């Protein structure tokens, strides 16, 4: 059967568009299908615009500490609409950037909603075109990169309405600035919005069902984060079960149970951040007999699904739900399709939360490492004794390292503090290259930098810490 393309990518988020670029570089004739905005959630409604908002929040928060630096300025204020507009402008700029990249790599962009049908060697892609009409294309291989969206639990009222109950999408394009806010869920998304609105002065309460906030992070980091956030005026309810979210014209009432007691919280708005749902409706899952695993596409080592010629990457293919994981999978799958030998090691995937202070980690938490039955060596180093941190007035937080005691392999690194999201890649590189404590100790870290705390945390794990 005649093939229109070598590869069709469905979804142009950070998984899909990166896969398409790599495919084009490898000489594959490639098309990408997008139903909404090039760049997907990440750079239109996710990673990027939230970073713009958080920067505004951070700058505003700094103003209230100007005196610490011997600087003063007039009364600080902000224009919420201008902050949101800036964030939208940033998203727009990157969205056009992806368009440019597609053109540069001669990737055909098909605007519309795709559906898969049984095909010969790979599924056929039927696209309901935005411009009207439909188009059927056939390729040797198809990559599903359709992403995910906020999870709703309508039974207890956890369902965004864009007015009083917001998903991440509403929260970054909010209709008004809420003087009070409840955030349901304390993962990265919940914490970032809580941090942003709190920085601008909102009364924010975060509700978490599990025992601690940022539950995927190391327990010590979670505890330090809660303390740091509380210092900024954030309130928390952990181990709290949400029983109902009611809304009225003027606000919301959140009913919850914590420690055996029922409680009600009132606020002007609520943000629902209780996980994600893969966008797999109406894509042809049943028609193809596509195997799923807990709502996500089941994939093999190279992203292959049980349907010949069909691969899946990114959020729709399971956790962790991170843009860089999607991009990494996209490149890997395309190189596999192009017949390149897989020489990569199992690269660990770092995770970052851009709150004030920031949180970043890679690899196993101390508890997870122990649960695997490993004997560990743990090192810690606080920023409060790091020269650069003191000079910058950013002494909050610490670096923690987890080594396998038997082999000396670095198996986890956890950080909280200023700009730690920019530092975690140092440990990610180290882990990907399979370094041991010895190489890390021998590495020279520039002085004065916050990164010296990384070095010290390595030294500390082996009883060689210098500055404490």
């Amino acid at each position, binding site marked *: 059967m005649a093939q229109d393309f070598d590869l069709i990518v469905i979804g142009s988020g950070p998984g899909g568009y990166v896969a398409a670029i790599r495919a084009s570089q490898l000489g594959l004739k490639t098309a990408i299908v997008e139903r909404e905005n090039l760049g997907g959630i990440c750079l239109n409604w996710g990673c990027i615009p939230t970073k713009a908002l958080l920067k505004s929040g951070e700058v505003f928060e700094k103003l209230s500490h100007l005196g610490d630096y011997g600087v003063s300025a007039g009364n600080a204020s902000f224009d919420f609409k201008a902050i949101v507009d800036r964030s939208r402008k940033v998203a727009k700029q990157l969205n056009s950037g992806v368009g440019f990249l597609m053109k540069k790599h001669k990737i055909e962009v098909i605007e519309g909603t795709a559906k898969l049908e049984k095909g010969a060697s790979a599924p056929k892609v039927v696209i309901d075109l935005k411009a009207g009409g439909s188009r059927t294309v056939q390729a040797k291989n198809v990559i599903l990169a359709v992403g995910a969206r906020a999870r709703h639990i309508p039974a207890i009222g956890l369902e965004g309405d864009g007015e009083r109950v917001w998903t991440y999408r509403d929260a970054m394009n909010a209709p008004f600035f809420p003087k009070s806010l409840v955030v349901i869920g304390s993962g990265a998304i919940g914490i970032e919005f809580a941090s942003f609105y709190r920085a601008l002065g909102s009364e924010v309460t975060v509700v978490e069902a599990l025992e601690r906030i940022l539950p995927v992070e190391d327990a010590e980091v979670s505890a330090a984060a809660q303390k740091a956030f509380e210092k900024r005026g954030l309130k928390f309810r952990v181990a709290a079960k949400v029983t109902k979210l009611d809304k009225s014209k003027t606000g919301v009432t959140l009913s919850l149970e914590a420690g055996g007691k029922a409680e009600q919280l009132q606020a002007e708005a609520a943000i629902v951040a209780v996980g994600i749902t893969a966008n797999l409706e109406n894509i042809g899952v049943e028609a193809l007999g596509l195997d799923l695993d807990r709502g996500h596409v089941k994939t093999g080592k190279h992203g292959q699904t049980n349907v010949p010629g069909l691969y899946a990457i990114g959020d729709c293919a399971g956790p962790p739900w991170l843009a860089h994981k999607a991009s990494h999978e996209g490149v890997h799958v395309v190189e596999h399709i192009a017949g390149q030998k897989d020489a990569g*090691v199992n690269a660990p995937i770092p995770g970052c939360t851009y709150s004030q202070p920031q949180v970043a980690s890679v690899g196993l938490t101390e508890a997870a490492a122990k649960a695997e039955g490993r004997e560990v060596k743990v090192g810690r180093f606080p920023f409060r004794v790091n020269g650069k941190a003191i000079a910058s007035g950013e002494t909050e937080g610490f670096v923690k390292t987890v080594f396998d005691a038997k*082999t*000396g*392999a670095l198996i986890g690194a956890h950080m909280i503090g200023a700009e730690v999201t920019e530092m975690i890649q140092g440990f990610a590189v180290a882990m990907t290259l*399979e370094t*041991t404590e010895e*190489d890390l100790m021998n590495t020279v870290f520039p002085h004065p930098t916050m990164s010296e705390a990384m070095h010290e945390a390595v030294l500390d794990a082996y009883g060689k810490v210098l500055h404490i």
Partner: protein
Amino acid sequence: MTDILMPALSPTMEEGALAKWHVKPGDTIEAGQVIAEIETDKATMEVEAVDEGVVEAILVPEGAQGVKVNTPIARLKGEGAPAAKPARQGASAAPAAAPKAEAPKAEAPKLAAAPAPLAAKADGQRVFASPLARRLAQQAGLDLKAVQGSGPRGRIVKRDVEAAASGKAPAARGAPAAAEPRQVLSLEQMGIKPGSYDLIPLDGMRRTVAKRLTESFRDVPHFPLTIDVEIDRLLEARTRINAMLEKQGVKVSVNDIVIKAAAHALKAVPEANASYTPDGIAMHHNADISMAVAIDGGLITPIIFKAETKSLSQIAKETKDLAERARSRKLKPEEFQGGTFSVSNLGMFGIKHFASIINEPQGCIMSVGAGEQRPVVKNGQLAVATVMSVTLTCDHRVVDGAVGARFLQVFKALLDDPVTMLA
């Protein structure tokens, strides 16, 4: 200064012969310039310089055999480095430097220098391994030289050492060969007098054929299945096709049709297009057909990739081109590595039928005999038909008897009535 190392021209290459030097000491070379020709078991390939510089010394002379991958073969003068200081390169390089010192003439060191540094380097060869892999190997008491790397550029990583330590990996680099040398008596011990024969040295290709096929025949549980195919209609179709293609100067052979039919049959019976691996059965997406081509001193198997997607004329063009370039040893590694199924044809020599040895990791190899007129019985009557016997050797770990038989049935039906390949 910079050493130019013996390159690995293919993933399986362990050593090669330095067939020809295109540069001599004192020459200025640029990145990308062809500096030497290397002969491997499969092909002769040109080596391009990666760095620019001035050739200071040729460390391995032209004609040297068995040069291990990563052995320094030449040295470039580094920028600003003292020109006449090759001797201080550490113990392993000393033998190479010595003749240079006593023979300042550019060409002189070539011959004297070669053998000694080869032996020395082979042992002191740098092993690329991650720090964690090194430590794990040390803890397990493993010699990293005996571990095959699977990381970027063949770097040894954690998983390789773990696999080697648990005995799962095909611990490479000659380790198993050294472990169990097969006892072979010399010809003399077996009563053949010295001088009564000529000894042709084993070249790379012969060694590879000997090694790989011995391993395959010994270690792969294989069995043959033979079927007779009537090809009168096929020959008729071929005549018509070739009449049509004459203008284009393309001529389709019976073997081309066999390749196409085999590819179609593999798509119909995908279980036959498979490879055994310790992790599971690899079901190949495409029918990449390796065709055995006899060449001077051995054989090579260039590949018709995705043969199921190609027209007969395209296959005919490719087989002709590949066979020609195979004979002149001009194939690139990627053109003869990675097929999923092999076809070997000895029909032109009048061989009636034969059973080839599995070409690992492929699950099957097809041996095609001569098409010849034979008496056949049709509807109880004796008749004459052109019949070709085809034998499929199967790796029983992947392809069971019934699967192989089903494949042959489909294959036979396609050849019986070639029009069906258009379906």
